[in-house]
């Protein structure tokens, strides 16, 4: 029993492993005794586990459903695990689900999404980070005013902007092109990203910037050689936010592109929103999961950096 306890609580084990002292200590000594199932721990882990269930439930349902056949879905309830696992829905969602006449599932949209996301993320982050840098380190008259406008802009529903943006894109001749869409993502990503970058750069020691200026480095040299190498955490945050946002975007993707460049979400919408006919829930769920896969993978890879980056960029007002 005692051994079990020790194995259960490593803190205790370390302490007791030390050789017994020559002078025996009577009464309480060493670390405070801790019960593993103290009320506090039960409360903390209980709450966390309960909440985790709430968060995991939809994922579970999606995964389970996507692995069932349609008859099983009609009969059983959504929480029961699949009796017979089938990957048919996944294959269908990926490669054979139809939208109108195009029956190549999400696969086509996937590459479109990649081609939209990569330049959009790159450009929006580049511009926002330069903005943030200019705002934090090269304050000039009026800069804060533009910045305020930008932040207020973050609150404008996108729908309101659809029309003016169509006009702007038409006027500069980018309407319907990939670059038009990239521009739109850059514009609408700018408020929050600029805010993040500005706060981050402002939290870096100002002396570093001054030292570089004394060394003769100009605006761009300082940005590229001094600031960028120090900004990994905030770039991770920005990349996560933008990849998530742009990858999941539906509205801009559908309004500002053509059918052969529709992103994955449009395909997803087509698959799940086929109003007439029987809903293939399993295919829908598989398509849903497939669409969310890229941002999810990025999250799992960079979760720790994300929190650190947020701490760096968001907290310092």
């Amino acid at each position, binding site marked *: 029993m005692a051994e079990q306890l020790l194995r259960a609580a490593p803190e205790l084990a370390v302490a007791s492993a030390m050789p017994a002292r020559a002078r025996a200590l009577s009464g309480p000594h060493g670390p405070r005794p801790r019960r593993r199932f103290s009320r506090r721990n039960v409360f903390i882990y209980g709450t966390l586990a309960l909440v985790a269930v709430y968060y995991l439930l939809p994922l579970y349902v999606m995964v389970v459903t996507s692995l069932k056949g349609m008859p099983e879905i009609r009969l059983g309830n959504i929480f029961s695990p699949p009796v017979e696992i089938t990957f048919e829905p996944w294959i269908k969602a990926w490669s054979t689900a*139809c*939208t*109108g006449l195009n029956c190549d599932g999400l696969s086509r949209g996937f590459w479109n999404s990649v081609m939209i996301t990569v330049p959009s993320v790159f450009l929006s982050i580049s511009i926002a980070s330069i903005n943030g840098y200019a705002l934090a380190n090269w304050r000039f008259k009026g800069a804060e005013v533009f910045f305020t406008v930008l932040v207020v802009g973050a609150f404008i529903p996108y729908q309101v902007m659809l029309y003016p943006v169509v006009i702007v*894109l038409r006027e500069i001749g980018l*309407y*319907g092109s990939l670059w038009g869409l990239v521009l739109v993502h850059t514009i609408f990503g700018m408020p929050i990203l600029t805010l993040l970058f500005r706060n981050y750069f402002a939290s870096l020691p100002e002396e570093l910037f001054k030292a570089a200026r004394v060394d003769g480095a100009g605006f761009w040299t300082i940005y590229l050689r001094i600031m960028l190498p120090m900004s990994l955490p905030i770039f991770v945050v920005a990349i996560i936010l933008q990849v998530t946002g742009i990858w999941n975007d539906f509205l801009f993707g*559908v*309004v500002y592109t053509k059918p052969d460049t529709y992103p994955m979400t*449009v395909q997803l919408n087509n698959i799940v929103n086929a109003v007439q*006919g029987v809903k293939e829930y399993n295919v829908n769920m598989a398509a849903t999961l497939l669409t969310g896969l890229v941002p999810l993978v990025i999250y799992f890879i960079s979760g720790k950096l994300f929190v650190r980056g947020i701490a760096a960029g968001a907290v310092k007002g």
Partner: protein
Amino acid sequence: TDLEVTHWWTSGGEAAAVAELAKAFDATGNKWVDGAIAGSGDIARPIMIGRITGGDPMGATQFNHGRQAEELVQAGLMRDFTELAQKEGWTKFIHPKSLLDGCTLDGKIYCVPVNIHSQQWLWLSNKAFADAGVAVPKNWDEFVAAAPALEKAGIVPLAIGQQPWQTTLAFQVILVALAGPETFQKVFGDKDATLAAGAEMAKVFAAADQARQMSARSNVQEWNQATSMVINGKAGGQIMGDWAQGEFQVAGQVAGKDYTCLPGLGVNEIISTGGDAFYFPKQTDPEKAKAQEALASVMLSPATQVAFNLKKGSLPVRGDVDLNAANDCMKKGLEILAKGNIIPAPDQLMSADGVTQINDLFVEFFANKELSPQDAQKRFAEIIAAAD
């Protein structure tokens, strides 16, 4: 020439129908580039408008004909097909005439109607009435009378999905059926507000009130879920367009035996002639323009019409084609069409703005039990008065 065609036909049957159009078009030596967007006009329309006003128009695009595209036409963004229509004699074979009227503005023809969809149907589950121990009703009044029996048997008398357009559809169907086509024409076409506020319409609102009571327990979102309630005998009936028939067919049910269809709610055997049409935004490339003409004539060719409408489950726009394969209910519809008991769809009579407002009203009416029929009628009359 490649021609991009946008539409929102993405379900199985619809896609198959579109494939027919594409096949026929490809046969002319051009190529159909499919630009399907699922999720009905709400999602597709801003894209189309955006593309057209943004200066990057598609080759052709689906629109509900009627007044939706009016301004685009007025702004000179749409192609005029009068010449082609005269050459091919569209006016001669398109039946009913009202279909082409919807495409006509200032005497010029701007669109190509491809099918007719009718909404005025009440679908009944024979099993449900058998379970409740009452006879299958022959008209709306019998249906209302049978409702308590259904309720007692634990059956929802009337299934209505919660999406806004379904409740509006139900109301309009009731209106046409109970008040008759003249009233419909006067109210929606001539915007006769006095009539809208009058006794005739009060009857309609009372009926709608009954409908909403009967549908109180139908807890479904989508129309096909409601239909499947009828199919399973969990609901007595559903007011829905002719496309519901596809569901019964998929479930292997037979008209007359397993289910019953009552056009015009069995009161006024009338159907509306709404439907889908294609518009052709102006193109700068003459090659594309030629392809557009080819597409327009292909869409109206008899062979395409038959092939397309059989797949789509709708009625052809040509009076001169023969549909042998049609089932009972469809034949009922063809008969009515032949008799000329037709009315135009509200879309053709009223601007989208007005239609939306009326939709909103009925959506609210069905959802909000506190809104009395009298108040609803008053608001209805106001909308009609303000509409253009």
